[in-house]
């Protein structure tokens, strides 16, 4: 079992004819994800991957023809907000945006609009989701995780892969892994995922991978104290990051004394979350 994506996911790929879109579509299809359609404005009527997947001019046409119920966005940053609006307006309930570099003010408009529409966005600037054995939506490598009982939620990409791989090496599998992305304004928060993992009967333990910047980890700590019964193990990256500098991710910055790793670790430990000192300790804390 899983959260957000599974074998019933009927996936639409926005930007399917671009380099990234096409490459990762093939990876997702090879993994067994049910990719039903793609969009690329002006290329409607074409087919990709040896005629396996139809391309549409608009999300609306794609949904009407294929019943797509989730979308993954591989559109460049300057066009990505429009792609997200298009999916939301076409009634797609789950939109996963991989794109990095979307302006913050665009994201504030996107987020506030989607909240009104009731659509869920995961990302942007994220690796997407993986429900091992069922569906891979985004760019998380498929061969680094096995099905299992651990829910993983993370603001990072390769750091998450590292953790999934380490879990697999000790025989632990994941229910679902959600990359919520490294931007300051995103669609899905730690709390959203913790709530879903708590409700998912097949998730028994949760790994939370946070980093400097913002206060989402502190809010997660409050949520864990108030509403979680399942054990949570955490890791927070960026203890040595200098203040005022963006550490690669647009959202990974300590500003005005807020967003420090030490504060996040303290908040999580205060509610009984075991916080690993480095990523290789995580698997051990779950056993």
């Amino acid at each position, binding site marked *: 079992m899983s959260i957000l994506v599974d074998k019933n996911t009927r996936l639409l790929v926005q930007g399917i004819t671009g380099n990234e879109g096409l490459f990762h579509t093939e*990876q997702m299809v090879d993994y067994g994800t049910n990719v039903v359609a793609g969009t690329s404005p002006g290329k409607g009527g074409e087919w990709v991957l040896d005629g396996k997947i139809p391309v549409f001019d608009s999300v609306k046409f794609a949904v009407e023809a294929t019943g797509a119920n989730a979308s993954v966005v591989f559109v460049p*940053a*300057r066009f990505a907000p429009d792609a997200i609006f298009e999916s939301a307006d076409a009634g797609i309930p789950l939109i996963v945006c991989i794109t990095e*570099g*979307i*302006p*913050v*003010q*665009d994201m*504030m*408009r996107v*987020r*506030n*609009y989607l909240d009104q529409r009731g659509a869920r966005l995961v990302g942007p600037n994220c690796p997407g989701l993986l429900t091992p054995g069922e569906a891979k939506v985004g*760019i*998380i*490598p498929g*061969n*680094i995780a096995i099905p299992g009982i651990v829910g993983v939620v*993370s*603001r*990072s*990409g*390769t*750091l*998450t*892969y*590292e953790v999934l*791989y380490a879990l697999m090496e000790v025989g632990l599998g994941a229910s679902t892994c959600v990359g919520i992305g*490294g931007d*300051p*304004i995103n669609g899905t928060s730690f709390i959203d995922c913790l709530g879903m993992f708590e409700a998912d009967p097949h998730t028994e333990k949760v790994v939370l*991978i946070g*980093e*400097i*910047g*913002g*206060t989402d980890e502190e*809010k997660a700590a409050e949520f864990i104290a108030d509403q979680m019964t399942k054990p949570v193990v955490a*890791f927070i*990256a*960026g*203890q*040595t*990051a*200098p203040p005022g*500098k963006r*550490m*690669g*991710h*647009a*959202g*990974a910055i300590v500003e*005005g*004394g807020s967003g420090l*790793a030490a504060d996040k670790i303290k908040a999580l430990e205060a509610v009984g979350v075991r916080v690993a*000192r*480095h*990523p*290789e300790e995580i698997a051990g804390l779950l056993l």
Partner: protein
Amino acid sequence: MKLHEYQSKQIFSKYSIPIPSGQVAATASEAKQIAAELGGRVVIKSQVLVGGRGKAGGIRLAKNPQEAQELATQILAMDIKGLPVRKVLVDEAASIETEIYLGVTNDRAARKPVMMASSAGGVDIEEVARTSPEKIARVHIDPLLGLRDYQTRDLAYGIDLPREQWRAFGQIAHGLWQAYKDCDANLAEINPLVITAEKHLLAVDGKMVIDDNALFRHPDLAEMRDLDEEAGAETEARKYGLSFIKLDGQIGCMVNGAGLAMATMDIIKLFGGEPANFLDIGGGASSDKVAAALRIILADPNVKVVLINIFGGITRCDEVARGIVTALQEVKVQAPMVVRLVGTNAEEGRQILANARMVTADTLAGAAQQAIQAAQRG
């Protein structure tokens, strides 16, 4: 990207926010000439992209053009927090009665812009937030609707602004919101916004920070970038699509992915070492990116050892290893290197590196400890 005070105020002025008459000077004689044209008292303000210019002596009042020239000479010779002063702004001195604060920025937690006003102007707003939070009034702005008139009145009321100033304050608040929105700013602030002896509102100091990710639609703003703002190596890294931040330690780091790069720095520190940098080479770790990253890391004379930490996912570890070996044919590295590969085909990758006589590690903890030992020997 931070804008200088004079750049920010020029933008504010386009949005009908009143600013003092003034001009920028790069030499003391220019400063004297501007002061003469303005007549009367002027303020000489260093234009550097750090806070605390006043405390550092970088903002001085001159009574006449001759004094303006003398003070400009002094200020243009200064370094403020390591940044050389290359320009000064010569502004007409205002007769200040009251100083307030007005700013708009992104509120991450609320996922909306927030406009803040404070009766304690002229001091750092974060300082006010710590010491006397009751002096700050806030309104959250719906990004789809924009700033509403009543919200500007709420702010004015919240800081006990005299009623006769509400209208002018409202216009300035709207101008500031529009400047923030149109320029894709992360921050637009007027500090202080003063009430003059003549009861006029005047934006005496201004600051804007522009969202780097939005510069593609603001070529005019992108041209304003002051390269003094960041270390040369950071600019160089950006050309290659690398994300680099210099630190003070001896262990150079090259990692794919920002989170993993931070975790690598942290583990070095955890085991008693000091990282020399943050460096994210991105997902693929191709040989040309590895070569560029090595050149940037090794340009730092403090670096005694290089730690490479790569997770091979879709780009497999054997491909990454070949990329590293190719890069090393191009860049000659004297410093010892420790490479840790993990993920898809890690075993094959390590074998390729071992054949090239490189030190490999199975675990991140092991790699960090090996790098620290090498740094202590070197």
